[in-house]
């Protein structure tokens, strides 16, 4: 084995991570145009085994992780999912299933519940069945309705997640009513992040500033109406808002992502960044990856920051924004996130947003093929 390259010294030793996003598989029955998984997906044969995932959970628990999100793709496509839930629960992790709901029958849910599953996050694309299935690129609405009912009947906390974009922002009231009708404890309204496949559909997904303004006002009204009875989370549209997002709570600061093939990344989209040399759990301990690897130290802290971030008060709020977006839009991951109004490259984003505002007839979604 050759010695790994010496990582840059981080400004402070990092505290332990809180959360692990476990992308169990890239396979998915849905083909959402806004999918932020990579364009090149991991094949089924390249996925970690049951034993390898169990070892990941064990190491994560020992490292200080307390939450794991079993995600994908569609994690229900892993036949060993109950074993994986049991392994995560056994490692002391609070285990949440992140699912499309397709394939979540009564027996499957009972198995998962019995294995120690703590909560479920269910995706929804639109309150109208036909529109929802057009966005998802697949029959799925009936399965989601059934999944929501079963989750509630099982007594598990239900979070409903809707990725927002040009095609559903005007139906925000419908989405919130649907989630309430389904008995959600929490609704996450997450504006699209233009990573992976979603970047291909940017022109069809990017909303107009007027749409965002109306949606934001609706969210405020719902919050007032609902009081504190239901948690309503709004993940802001960074491009339209001209505000860099506090991506992942800071690079290598809060959580790890493990891809289906065992690649470990500071964020789900970081696999696209050049020179990151992403480590893999099949070669390295998670503790070494978190503390020592080049990938996790590349943008940790503030020493990597360019101007204007370096001298900006917002750097402690937005941590310099999104590295993957900087790379996607400028070809240089060390640039200030162009979403930020103070970024030298912000005109790129202004042009995109102006393009969306001027476009009366956005293009249809490009759907991806399946995973082999």
């Amino acid at each position, binding site marked *: 084995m050759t010695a790994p390259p010496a990582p840059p010294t981080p400004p402070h030793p990092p505290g*332990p991570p*809180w959360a692990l996003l476990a992308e169990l598989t890239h396979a998915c029955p849905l083909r959402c145009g806004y999918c932020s998984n990579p364009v090149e997906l991991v094949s089924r044969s390249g996925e970690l085994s049951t034993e390898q995932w169990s070892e990941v959970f064990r190491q994560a628990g*020992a*490292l*200080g992780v*307390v*939450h794991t999100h079993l995600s994908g793709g569609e994690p229900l496509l892993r036949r060993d999912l109950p074993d994986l839930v049991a392994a995560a629960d056994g490692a*002391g992790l*609070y285990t*949440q299933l992140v699912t499309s709901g397709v394939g979540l029958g009564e027996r499957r849910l009972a198995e998962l519940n019995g294995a120690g599953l*703590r*909560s479920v*996050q269910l995706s929804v694309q639109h309150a109208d069945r036909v529109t929802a299935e057009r966005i998802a690129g697949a029959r799925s609405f009936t399965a989601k309705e059934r999944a929501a009912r079963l989750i509630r009947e099982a*007594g*598990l*906390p239900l*979070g409903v997640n809707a990725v927002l974009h040009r095609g559903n922002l005007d139906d925000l009231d419908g989405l919130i009513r649907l989630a309430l009708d389904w008995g959600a*404890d*929490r609704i996450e309204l997450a504006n699209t992040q233009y990573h992976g496949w979603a970047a291909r559909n940017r022109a069809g997904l990017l909303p107009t500033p007027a749409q965002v303004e109306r949606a934001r006002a609706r969210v405020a009204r719902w919050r007032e109406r609902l009081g504190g009875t239901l948690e309503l989370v709004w993940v802001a549209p960074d491009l339209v808002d001209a505000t860099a997002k506090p991506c992942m709570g800071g690079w290598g600061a809060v959580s790890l992502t493990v891809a289906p093939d065992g690649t470990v990344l500071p964020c789900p989209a970081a696999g696209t960044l050049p020179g990151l040399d992403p480590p893999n759990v099949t070669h390295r301990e998670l503790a070494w990856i978190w503390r020592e690897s080049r990938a996790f130290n590349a943008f940790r802290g503030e020493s990597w920051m360019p101007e204007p971030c370096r001298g900006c008060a917002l750097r402690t709020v937005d941590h310099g924004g999104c590295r993957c977006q900087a790379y996607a839009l400028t070809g240089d991951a060390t640039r200030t996130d162009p979403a930020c109004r103070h970024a030298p490259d912000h005109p790129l984003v202004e042009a995109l947003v102006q393009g969306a505002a001027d476009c009366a007839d956005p293009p249809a979604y490009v759907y991806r093929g399946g995973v082999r």
Partner: protein
Amino acid sequence: MTAASPASPAMSWRPVLARGVVLRHDRVRGTDLLLLPERVVVLDGSAGGVLRLCDGVRDVAAVVTELAVRHPAAPVAAEVPEFLNRLRKEGWLR
């Protein structure tokens, strides 16, 4: 603030963690945590010890009595019912 009388509603409910809420000792950080979907609450000092007594069988008065025996010098009767009520309002206890 005066302590509630043993027969008051503040003392007679039987607190237990709500569904989906997990109380855990974090050995890595040396602290007690409440784990919820998408959320971690770091518990200060004795809060975890109070919540470990919330088993749905003991009422608040019994929790207070037990804690007063363990910590005779602490203002248990004045603070614990209020603390538990706050967690009930958050939806973490029922």
